[in-house]
C-alpha cells in the first residue's frame, strides 16, 4: 500500500485523495493526525510543516466538534495530495446556521499563520473547512 501511495506522489502528473471518517468525538481526532502524519511523510514534509499540519487539523476539528449538532455522528476529513502540499477538507454536521462562524478569532489567528487558502462555511447544516499546508 505504501509503495502504491509513494508511486502516486512521485508522479508529478498525479494527485489523489485519502478520506477518513471518524466518530464525532475529540478522542478520535488522533486518527486524523496519524493519517496526516503518514501522508505528509510520503510527500517528504519537513518536521516543522508536519507539526503545522497537526496544529491546523487539531484546531479545525476541535472547532467543528465544539459547534457540532447534537446528532452529529461523523467527522469526515479528506486529504488531497500533490507535490509540495496537502489540502485538507474537514466537515461535520453543525448546529450553526449559514453565515454563523464556527472558527473563533483565536482559531483564525492560529490558522492564518500555519495554513494557506483557508475557506470555511456552513452549507446545508454542514460545517466545512478547507485549507492547504505547503511543504517549505
Amino acid at each position, binding site marked *: 500500500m505504501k509503495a502504491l501511495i509513494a508511486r502516486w506522489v512521485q508522479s508529478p502528473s498525479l494527485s489523489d485523495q485519502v478520506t477518513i471518517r471518524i466518530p464525532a468525538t*475529540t*478522542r478520535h*481526532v*488522533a486518527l486524523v*493526525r*496519524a493519517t496526516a*502524519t*503518514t501522508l*505528509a*511523510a510520503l510527500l*517528504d*514534509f*519537513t*518536521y*516543522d*510543516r*508536519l*507539526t503545522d499540519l*497537526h*496544529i491546523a487539523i*487539531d*484546531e479545525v*476539528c*476541535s472547532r467543528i466538534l*465544539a459547534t457540532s449538532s447534537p446528532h452529529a455522528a461523523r467527522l469526515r476529513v479528506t486529504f488531497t495530495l500533490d507535490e509540495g502540499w496537502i489540502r485538507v477538507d474537514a466537515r461535520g454536521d453543525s448546529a450553526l446556521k449559514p453565515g454563523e462562524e464556527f472558527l*473563533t*478569532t*483565536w482559531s483564525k*489567528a*492560529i490558522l492564518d*499563520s*500555519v495554513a494557506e487558502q483557508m475557506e470555511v462555511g456552513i452549507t446545508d447544516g454542514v460545517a466545512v473547512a478547507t485549507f492547504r499546508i505547503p511543504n517549505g
Partner: protein
Amino acid sequence: MTGTVPSHERHPQLPKPQVKRLFRELRRTEDPGIRAKLIESHLGLVEYLARRFAGRGEPLDDLVQVATIGLVKAVDRFDPTREVEFSTYATPTIVGELKRHFRDKGWAVRVPRRLQELNLRLSGVIGQLSQDLQRSPTVAEIAVASEATQEEVLEALDSAHAYSLISLDAAVTEEGLSYHEQIGSDDLALDALEERVSVGPLLRQLPPRERHMLHLRFFKGMTQSEIAQDLGISQMHVSRLLAKTLATLRSGLQDERERKR
C-alpha cells in the same frame, strides 16, 4: 527542578498528629496558608510517586506536576474526622491522576523501550540536522540520521506528540528547561488579541514562556526551528509545548462552556 537534594530534605514531612491538627484547622478556618503548608509538606510523597511512573516516555517534571494536581485534590477532599492517615488517603488519588495522565495521552501506561530510546535520540538528531541543513529536516532525513526506519520515526514522533485534543488538567509545565526570558513589550499583538477573544482570560494565565512562544509562532510568524534557536531549546520541545499550550486553551474553553450550561 529536582536537583540533588533528596526530596525529604527539601519538603520536610510534618509529624502525623500535626498533619491531622492542621487539617482540622483548615476545615474550620479555610485558611489558604494552612492549605499551602499541607500541600508543601507532602511534595515529597508527590515526587516519590511520580518517580514510580518515570521512564515511560514522559519527563519527570511533567509527572511531578500531574501528581501535584492529585495531591491538591486530596488535600481539598480529605476528611480529618476519618480514621485514616492523610498519606494513605492521598496515595490512590495521586496515582489515579498519574494513570489518567497516561490514559489521556492515549498511551498504554508502558511505552515500549525501543520507542522511548528512539524518542530520546530524535530530539538531538532533529536539532543537529536543522543546524547542518539550515532548515527543518524531513522524516526520511531524520530516519537516516537516527538509523531507524521511517515507520519507526513516525511512531516515535507520534508518541512524543501524543496528547488529547481536550486534555484534562493540561497543566503547562516548565520541563526543567533553561530558557531566555524575553517576555514583555514585544508581545503586543497577543495583548491586543487577548482583549477581543474568548481565550483572553486563559491566555493571561499562561506562563510567560508559553505566551511568548505563541506570540513568536502565531504573530511574528517564526518557524519552530527559529523559536527553538531563539529560546535555546530543542525543536521537538517547541513543537510539544505549542501543542500542549493550544490543547490547554481548548480545554479551558471547553470548561468555560460546561460552566455556562
